[in-house]
């Protein structure tokens, strides 16, 4: 550990935060905690936008070609007095997915919590590269501005799906979208640069700046998850960036990487996209698994069940995520033998996911469970992940996938996994809000928010399995155009009503968040009686985080340890011989 001690010594111990003015404290801040908060606000704004788009789509699917309430002000040709035209519908689902994946889940789970938690939980004063960290946010914000600009160009925003399959995406004539799609590509390239800067920073920080005694196997699982996520990002993003650049060249310079008339191959796009895209799924879900592990252990007052299995299963998922991309392409025209190979690898990746679920159950077993808002949302994540994981086995089986591919079954599956992450996201906000803003959130409002969100999330997404089994295709604008879907329409109406209530169920959260920000009860250092290092710092921690760098004596999950009377034992509290040594210093 000597190298990490020197790394700390090189840092100014009290990086005089008092002298920093408004701009350098709140706007161009190099403090990892402020950058984390900035990512949080970026993500929450985008969450509202992405959610409203989903509401518009649901309206269209339940009551096709009728005016959507409150949208009469949107001018033609985007909307016709509130009626969504097919082109706009395609734009809505493209941008809903793009915003939710790249501008909500990634900025909040990776950008916000990665930034906020890594230095605090490993016992460091800041990230390894604070300036790069600041740049990462501002480049990310620029990507967001470019992405939103796409809504205002002639021809509308990208409408070829978030997967942007060539050839549809490769020629403006096929969709009628010109600069919308170009800006979409440029924005994602810029966002890739932002994420690369972030991931290099995370990896360097975890490797070099752990506090004395913080060995790899004393790291909280949330740090493991963010560390692995950063490695996946570092390796996956260059592939996406290359593919996006090729697509942009096809569109603007007349190259034909993906266009067959110029000798290109449309399937090449799919291979490149999913080679990035499947690790991306784990980039989204691993941090959610990490925070869930920490929160379940804390509120069960019990060590995490099978810590090493949890860490190794995440490493296994990370490795396997590189060899499963072809399961998105079973009916694409890819060689069927390759389909068989990808089915095998996909079945294998289900195993570490199962291990995680059983270990979470094992953590609850014999616990002393406190039903706080973060705990409820973490349990909600587990419950959704069980459904999303199990429904994935259907499409892993190649013959079954022939039927359910491109149907609502897939939509149900990935919403249980990816939209299910929103439960981990809320759990994280409720859990770390006291540390982040120095005030507690309201528990009653939090519980109301949980109950409503949990019920209406399931009522929204579970019936989508029925639609998929009925053969209901995704990405269709009007299901009533098909005779075989007529009987399924009542399900569509039911889903839409549930989705609208699910949207409204977020109001208690918004109220709670802003009210608590200004008027919540002052938070103490360790309101949840948790073990990890961030709770030994003041709430909120000052610039530099710790008065003195903590020394770590044990793993992060020593709850209800027989060694102490209380049911928690912080990582930095010396006991017995350690205490004697610490006193002697």
């Amino acid at each position, binding site marked *: 550990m000597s190298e990490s001690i020197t790394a700390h010594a090189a840092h100014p111990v009290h990086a005089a935060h008092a002298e920093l003015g408004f701009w350098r404290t709140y706007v161009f801040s190099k403090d990892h905690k402020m950058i984390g908060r900035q990512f949080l606000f970026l993500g929450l704004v985008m969450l509202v936008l992405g959610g409203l788009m989903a509401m518009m789509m649901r309206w269209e699917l339940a009551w096709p070609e009728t005016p959507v309430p409150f949208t009469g002000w949107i001018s033609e040709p985007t909307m016709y007095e509130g009626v969504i035209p097919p082109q706009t519908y395609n734009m809505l689902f493209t941008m809903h997915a793009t915003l939710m994946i790249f501008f909500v889940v990634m900025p909040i789970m990776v950008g916000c919590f990665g930034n906020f938690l890594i230095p605090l939980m490993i016992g460091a004063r800041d990230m390894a590269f604070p300036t790069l960290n600041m740049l990462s946010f501002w480049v990310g914000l620029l990507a967001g501005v470019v992405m939103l600009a796409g809504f205002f160009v002639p021809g509308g925003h990208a409408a070829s799906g978030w997967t942007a399959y060539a050839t549809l995406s490769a020629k403006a004539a096929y969709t009628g979208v010109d600069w919308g799609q170009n800006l979409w590509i440029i924005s994602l390239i810029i966002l890739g640069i932002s994420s690369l800067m972030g991931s290099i920073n995370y990896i360097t920080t975890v490797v070099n700046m752990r506090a004395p005694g913080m060995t790899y196997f004393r790291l909280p699982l949330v740090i493991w998850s963010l560390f692995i996520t950063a490695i996946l990002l570092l390796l996956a993003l260059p592939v996406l960036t290359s593919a996006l650049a090729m697509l942009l060249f096809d569109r603007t310079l007349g190259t034909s990487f993906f266009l067959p008339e110029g000798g290109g191959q449309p399937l090449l796009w799919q291979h490149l996209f999913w080679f990035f895209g499947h690790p991306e799924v784990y980039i989204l879900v691993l941090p959610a698994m990490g925070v869930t592990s920490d929160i379940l252990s804390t509120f069960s007052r019990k060590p995490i069940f099978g810590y090493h299995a949890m860490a190794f299963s995440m490493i296994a998922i990370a490795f396997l995520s590189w060899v499963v991309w072809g399961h998105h392409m079973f*009916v694409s*025209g890819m060689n069927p033998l390759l389909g068989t190979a990808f089915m095998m690898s996909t079945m294998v990746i289900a195993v570490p996911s199962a291990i995680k679920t059983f270990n979470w159950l094992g953590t609850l*077993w014999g616990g002393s469970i406190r039903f706080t808002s973060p705990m409820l949302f973490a349990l909600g994540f587990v419950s959704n992940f069980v*459904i999303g994981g*199990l429904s994935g086995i259907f499409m892993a089986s190649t*013959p079954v996938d*022939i039927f359910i591919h491109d149907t609502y079954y897939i939509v149900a599956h990935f919403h249980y996994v990816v939209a299910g992450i929103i439960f981990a996201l809320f759990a994280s906000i409720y859990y770390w809000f006291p540390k982040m803003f120095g005030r507690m959130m309201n528990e009653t409002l939090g519980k109301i928010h949980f109950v409503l969100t949990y019920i209406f999330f399931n009522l929204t997404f579970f019936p989508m399995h029925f639609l998929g089994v*009925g*053969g209901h295709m995704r990405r269709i604008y009007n299901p009533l*155009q098909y005779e075989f879907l007529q009987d399924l329409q009542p399900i569509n109406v039911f889903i839409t009503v549930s989705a609208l209530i699910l949207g409204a169920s977020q109001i208690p959260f918004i109220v709670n968040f802003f009210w608590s920000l200004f008027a919540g009860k002052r938070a103490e250092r360790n309101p949840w009686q948790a073990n990890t290092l961030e709770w030994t710092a003041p709430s909120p921690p000052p610039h530099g985080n710790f008065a003195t760098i903590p020394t770590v004596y044990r793993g992060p999950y020593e709850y209800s340890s027989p060694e102490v009377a209380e049911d928690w034992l912080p990582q930095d509290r010396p006991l017995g011989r350690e205490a004697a040594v610490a006193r002697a210093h």
Partner: protein
Amino acid sequence: MLRWLPEDVSTYGREIDYLFYVIYYITGAAFIIVTFLMIVFLIVYREREGRRATYTHGNTALEIAWTVIPAVILVVLSFMSVSTWSKVKAHAPESDFEVQVTAKQFNWEILYPGPDKKLGTQDDLMIENDMHVPVNKVVRIILKSKDVIHSFFLPNLRLKQDAVPGREILVWFEATKPGKYELPCAELCGFGHSGMKGWLFVDTPEDYEKWLKEISSKS
């Protein structure tokens, strides 16, 4: 849930549905076990005065069990899937009934061989969106696309295959029951994607001959 499955009128659909059911029961059982345990644990192990959580870091035997059991089930499922998959996608049976389907924004162009029963000759017949095939006969389809990726989807035959520009992909099915079945496009293909559909008419041999005469005399 599976009662929503559309009627199956193909020779291989039964095998696909069988796998669907097998996975449905396995995952259903796993779901019930996990959910039941979770609810029981949440009730039994809720925080109560004077009780302390059990201090344990895991149980190796248990962890090995719940790693190995799902792994075995998943491997078995994979092997069960292989034969059906290769039957549907890899080994199209020989047949003298071949049509060419070309997808384009936003129609299916169906090309019949005409009286000489050969594709690519002068007497080929092209019809948009209506596909007639005889019942109980292997139908081989050469699937192409003129512009973007479309997906040839016959829910009642459990068949789906993307049509990729620049490629010719061989697809096959054998319908077992005469009738009229919908043929939607399942891959996003532009603003007219929703509503891009045709009809598959599975005819008795007599009806098929009658239709063929009718259509040949028209052209």
